[in-house]
């Protein structure tokens, strides 16, 4: 029975594979075009007959980006902001997720609903009050004004997602550890934490991306001190009213996209299994 099924399906499958490869090429094309344009010499970019290849790749655009615009510094700023948010939110969310899954206490359900509702708060709508909050605490034009809000916004989602992972660790394990004389702190960090780690990675992807991508807060809170600028803001410098520096924009975009791509490739297995674990729950 199964051989016939196989034979019927085969031509269909080849067509499906052709379509898949075509779609993959189309999806990858913008990224290919970005890197290609970053490597094209100035004359070719300004050509009205754009070609999908270049015979004389040059690093001029990259050089321009790093020389003119202190891109290295902005890159570092972005890295500091995203890195701090990822580490801090992972730790804080791990503790909170443990609290709401491993303990029964009053207001537990209320808290969970609160975390769920908090996820839906449109962070962009809070730009105005946050602007005044940062101003009152003298945090405008500092990286802290980006770190703190992003920490607050990534936490509810991180807690919600980690919940499933903490729940999946059997209670018996905890009892066993208790019998073996492990303290709660020891259980938390030496047993639970490593087991939940894949979930933490999946969660971190989201907090990393949302922080790395941040444009609105950087635009609103880093108003005068450009040395505190982050990559998304720096990119806009190449947009000019008369003529955009497309080579610079594409080189800057490449620099900004590559770390996320690397991060994604590093964690993609865990990400897919993490998503599967979170939604299956």
């Amino acid at each position, binding site marked *: 029975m199964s051989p016939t099924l196989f034979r019927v399906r085969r031509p269909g499958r080849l067509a499906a594979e052709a379509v898949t490869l075509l779609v993959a090429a189309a999806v990858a094309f913008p990224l290919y075009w970005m890197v290609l344009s970053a490597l094209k010499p100035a004359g070719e970019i300004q050509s009205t007959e754009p070609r999908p290849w270049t015979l004389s790749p040059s690093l001029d655009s990259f050089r321009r980006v790093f020389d003119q615009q202190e891109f290295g510094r902005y890159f570092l700023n972005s890295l500091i902001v995203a890195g701090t948010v990822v580490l801090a939110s992972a730790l804080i969310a791990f503790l909170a997720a443990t609290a709401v899954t491993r303990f029964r206490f009053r207001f537990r359900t209320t*808290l969970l609903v609160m975390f769920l509702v908090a996820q839906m708060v449109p962070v962009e709508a809070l730009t105005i009050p946050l602007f005044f909050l940062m101003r009152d605490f003298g945090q405008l034009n500092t990286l802290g004004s980006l770190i*703190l809000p992003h920490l607050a916004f990534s936490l509810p989602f991180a807690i919600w997602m980690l919940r499933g992972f903490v729940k999946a660790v059997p209670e018996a394990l905890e009892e066993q550890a208790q019998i073996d004389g492990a303290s709660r702190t020891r259980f938390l960090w030496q047993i639970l934490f490593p087991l939940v780690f894949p979930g933490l990675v999946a969660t971190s992807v989201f907090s990393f991306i949302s922080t790395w991508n941040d444009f609105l807060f950087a635009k609103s809170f880093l108003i005068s001190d450009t040395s505190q600028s982050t990559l998304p803001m720096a990119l806009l410098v190449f947009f000019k009213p008369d003529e955009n520096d497309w080579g610079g924009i594409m080189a800057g975009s490449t620099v900004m*996209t590559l770390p996320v791509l690397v991060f994604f490739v590093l964690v993609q297995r865990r990400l897919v299994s993490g998503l599967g674990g979170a939604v299956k729950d």
Partner: protein
Amino acid sequence: MTTPDTTSATLPAPRGRTRTTGRTPTPAPTRTVRRRTSAWTPWLYLLPALAVIGGLLVYPVYQLGLISFLEYTQAQVSGGEPTYFKGFGNYTALFTDPQFWQVLLATVLFAAACVVTTLAVGCALAVLLTRVRALPRLALMVAALGAWATPAVTGSTVWVFLFDPDFGPVNRLLGLGDFSWTYGRYSAFALVLLEVVWCSFPFVMVTVYAGIKAIPSEVLEAAALDGASQWRIWRSVMAPMLRPILVVVTIQSIIWDFKLFTQIYVMTNGGGIAGQNLVLNVYAYQKAFASSQYSLGSAIGVVMLLILLAVTLVYLRLLRRQGEEL
């Protein structure tokens, strides 16, 4: 115009605050405490999270509501003029402004178009992934991960460049000459939609694909043997089993697409020619930071907050109907 007591009742934050102060002194019930830990332990674990969320999420929401009822413009911010209570004045100004309704309508329609297209593309490709061998699957997965990983700002700049009237390859390919995509209202929205779908379909595709893989293959084989078409298998077998996942990705997409900012701002240069491509978020930003009408911007923020809150309530109800235990 309005009495202060009715307005204070509509502010969301005081309720949250009383909840915070009211809960701490209450001891947890002892029935399920398995080991000899203090009733405070879970609160100790929760403390950092609650402090951050309370200070930077709950309090700003309260502030947002408050500012939306005040007169708060550049004069008040610089300290020259006193702030005063305006009641629903800002909302009246907003709701009588025809531009607000036009922007609201554009936001809802645009978000809906983005959500529907993203879900359709994501689900179709997820099904496609299950029907191909490992190599083409890997190719599409890698490409999708790349699109997913692309930051909103760079995705926006690249798509604008692809569709650039002078130097972009798309117009050459389609023979459109020097047609400017960002000039017309609908073509500009269409361009942004393409970018949004490009960077958000991977989440749907990967999640739905993971869900399909979790369906026992016997079920699908049985349906195929019974002569069900691919569409029929999807509609009658897979979709019902994938319902929880579909709910999650739909709600996430609604939330993301309703509050788009970066794509619109970067691709249409701050909301398009004469504000033809404004969505609520960009509109609020322009009102607050470009024209210093902070209270009006806050009122728009409150409207967004309420709409997303309604979406959240629907989500909670769906979750509860599925018997999800919190």
